[in-house]
């Protein structure tokens, strides 16, 4: 403590029980009381804190705004939460290079706002972009609907500055689009969930903002046809920026929550957004309409005004809060499968729902195979939560069986750690562990994440 106070201003050091509990959770499951929460506002402060943590072998957990859905910032072994959200915002945009240099605390949506002033865009668009920090997005390698066309966070990082678990500062990558000098540590760090160090600066890639967008909403009488329609569109020479899927349960939940004019009789809907030049959009819209009709869509709706389009996307945004009204606890997964396997995955999810008699709804970024099966339950009901645990295990198994992955965009954290070996194999996981151990010899940097502990199982119940 003495050592900390030497360089960190008092207001940034929090030891009161009320403060500690305030950094004991994120947007996922579980609550772990840290011994201390501490805020860093500069690289020097981070170095100082990390050095002390390393010296005294105190676990340290970097954290942005705590919107993580996989438990990334949870202080599962006690120790120190390192809050980076109060670091003064720095956005240094270089329009000629189409790059931007940012501090870790910058809210992701702010980067796009700044880029738009120059006719550019920052493409990754997680739905929490207006709350979450870029530091958190980098650590978790977050994605959003536009991932279909543009990719996820890692596809937009040119360079990083990182404080290593031993308190040294390194720079990876650079400012150029092409860069093959040495190992690609940048991509290793992005998505490492804060286990390899603390990101203190990032150089990101921007791209020209498409001049126009067009929304299309397609209704289907059965889920399989919807799945086929997605594949057919993507093989027809068109790459939409977004292709979002909602099943009937989601549609009905939204209509019960805030009526938005969605077709409640449809078994599924797919909401498509095309972007590009207005003339191209006209041609592509016609083509998508034709494909949908051929494949047997029940209805194709092409909004004529931007207000109408906004209404459709607003309805899509309402899914999360709307389904939360079904039951208080939401277990949200992001298992992802190859696009062609979407219909199979839908079948498996349906079987799991029946088998465990749970409220399971599905929506998500179907265009890139990233579905969000959500189980609605009540965490105060121990028996039900037992069934949920089993169902989640089977969802992961189904994704892996179909050649997919545990997580498309939320990260592994604590919840999915027990399933890592299933996907990566013993040696695959071991190689990752060796990298981690050589970067962080004392194991202080965000312990308890990604790598399962011996005998660790998925637990959603409080004992």
């Amino acid at each position: 403590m003495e050592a900390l106070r030497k360089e960190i201003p008092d207001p940034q050091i929090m030891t009161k029980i009320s403060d500690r509990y305030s950094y004991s959770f994120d947007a996922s499951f579980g609550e772990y009381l840290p011994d201390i929460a501490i805020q860093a506002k500069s690289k020097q402060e981070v170095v100082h804190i990390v050095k002390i943590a390393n010296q005294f072998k105190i676990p340290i957990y970097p954290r942005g705004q705590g919107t993580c859905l996989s438990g990334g910032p949870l202080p599962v072994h006690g120790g120190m939460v390192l809050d980076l959200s109060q670091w003064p915002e720095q956005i240094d945009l270089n329009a000629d290079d189409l790059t931007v240099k940012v501090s870790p605390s910058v809210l992701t949506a702010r980067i796009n706002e700044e880029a738009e002033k120059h006719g550019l865009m920052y493409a990754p668009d997680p739905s929490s972009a207006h709350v979450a920090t870029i530091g958190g997005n980098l650590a978790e390698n977050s994605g959003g609907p536009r991932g279909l066309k543009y990719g996820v966070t890692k596809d937009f990082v040119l360079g990083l500055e990182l404080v290593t678990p031993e308190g040294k500062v390194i720079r990876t990558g650079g400012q150029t689009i092409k860069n093959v000098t040495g190992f690609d540590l940048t991509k290793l760090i992005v998505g490492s969930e804060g286990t390899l160090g603390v990101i203190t600066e990032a150089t990101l890639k921007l791209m020209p903002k498409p001049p126009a967008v067009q929304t299309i909403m397609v209704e289907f009488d059965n889920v399989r046809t919807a799945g086929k329609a997605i594949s057919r569109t993507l093989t027809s020479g068109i790459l939409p920026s977004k292709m979002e899927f909602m099943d009937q349960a989601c549609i009905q939940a939204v209509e019960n929550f805030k009526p938005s004019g969605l077709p409640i009789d449809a078994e599924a809907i797919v909401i498509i957004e095309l972007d590009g030049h207005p003339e191209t959009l006209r041609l592509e819209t016609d083509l998508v309409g034709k494909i949908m009709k051929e494949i047997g869509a029940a209805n194709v709706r092409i909004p004529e005004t931007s207000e109408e389009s906004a209404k459709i996307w607003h309805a899509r945004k309402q899914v999360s809060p709307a389904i939360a009204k079904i039951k208080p606890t939401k277990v949200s997964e992001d298992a992802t499968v190859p696009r062609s396997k979407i219909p199979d995955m839908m079948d498996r999810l349906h079987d799991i729902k029946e088998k465990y008699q749970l409220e399971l709804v599905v929506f998500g970024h179907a265009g890139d195979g990233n579905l969000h099966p959500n189980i609605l339950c009540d965490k105060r009901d121990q028996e039900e939560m037992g069934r949920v645990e089993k169902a989640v295990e089977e969802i992961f198994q189904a994704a892996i069986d179909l050649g997919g992955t545990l997580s498309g965009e939320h990260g592994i954290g604590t919840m999915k750690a027990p399933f890592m070996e299933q996907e990566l194999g013993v040696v695959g996981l071991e190689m990752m562990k060796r990298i981690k151990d050589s970067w962080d010899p004392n194991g202080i940097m965000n312990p308890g994440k990604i790598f399962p502990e011996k005998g660790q199982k998925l637990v959603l119940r409080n004992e």
Partner: protein
Amino acid sequence: MSELQILQEKINYDKTFDCVQCGYCLPACPTYETMERETHSPRGRINLVKMVAEGKASVEDLKNPIEKCLGCMACTTVCPTSVQYGQILEGAKEVIEDNEVISKSRKTIEDFLFGSFFPSEKWMSNLGNLTWFYQRTGIQSFVNMTRLTRWAPLHLDKFEQVIPKQPSPKERAKRTKRYIRKRPAQAKVAFFTGCVMDGVFFRTNQNTIELLLRGGFEVVIPEQQTCCGALHAHSGKVNDAIELAKRNIEAFEEEKIDYIVNNAGGCGARMVEYHHLFEEGTPWHKRAKQFVSKIRDISEVLVEVHGLHFNKPVDRTVTYQPSCHMTNVQKVKTPPLQLLEKVPGITFKELSRPDFCCGSAGIYNIVNYEDSMKILDVKMKDVCGTDSESVVTTNPGCLLQMKLGIEREGINQTMDAVHLVDLLLEADPQQK
């Protein structure tokens, strides 16, 4: 029921589960921004309420984070899962109040303010009269008379300099209680005067009545009306709040009226929630519902009747600081803007963050002066950025706070704060 279960019920433990901890409230919360920690955010506070209900933290631990909440309810507007933050907050305040962990000096002040000051029309008009007296005679005798020095740590002196010129006691007493129109009226409205509005901004109240009359309304001012109880509810004094609500419901039931009009965003917000104070299905709940259905802000009725034409141009650049309670609780957002648009000559400049609280928040700026000023400074930066000559508000608390902000910035030569009503009357509205 065990002690913990009783606490859980009181503190609305069940309601805390509506919060999925997504954090969408963080960018909307003024205290999270100025106090820079999760403990002073809506999500953090709700979590602490939960921790207290589960016996993991004590009521004492909860006290500071709850007391520092402005209650501006900006979080409820952005919350995707519609968490009833207002009820969780009031439950927490009630539990804190019951635990009597409030510091002694604050308690003395509150007991005086809530026990005899706010509900009393006499005290309130005395405040106005005293202020008038003080403005006529200078500070010394005023301070001696009221023993205001006791309040010195409350920074009341800062507020004194921004209180407007008061009408004489004679003018105050002269007000008619009933204004009947000779021509058929648009509607019959009862005017809710509000205690601070009537005490400190008596002329604005008079102007409100004038506007209503020009708009073609018949106006009555029920004599039995009392304080709306907002400040009591915000401080965990639920029983007092219920008592005041009952008295108002009774007072406005006496004759057939179409609307109950008020010009104070905070009072309006409290009154549109009166039915939450009573159990569903009870006669009081039904009477409260009836009462609530008639509540309107002055700007709403003026827009609804389309009755006014503004004759005199007001050549001024203005900005508008909406009352949080009007926006987030009453959900009245556009009517004041619609009215401003109708006034010829006005150049309107919008704030970049109109929904950010000014830090007035009931008596927050009195009991949490330093914290309030930090929030005010953020607000004033935005206000100054608009280069306006007037800041328009719709609530007495905001009005005083904006005047204070203008004083603090030292720009009282170039900028003033006005109630919307006063500005509208300046434009000489006449019935079409």
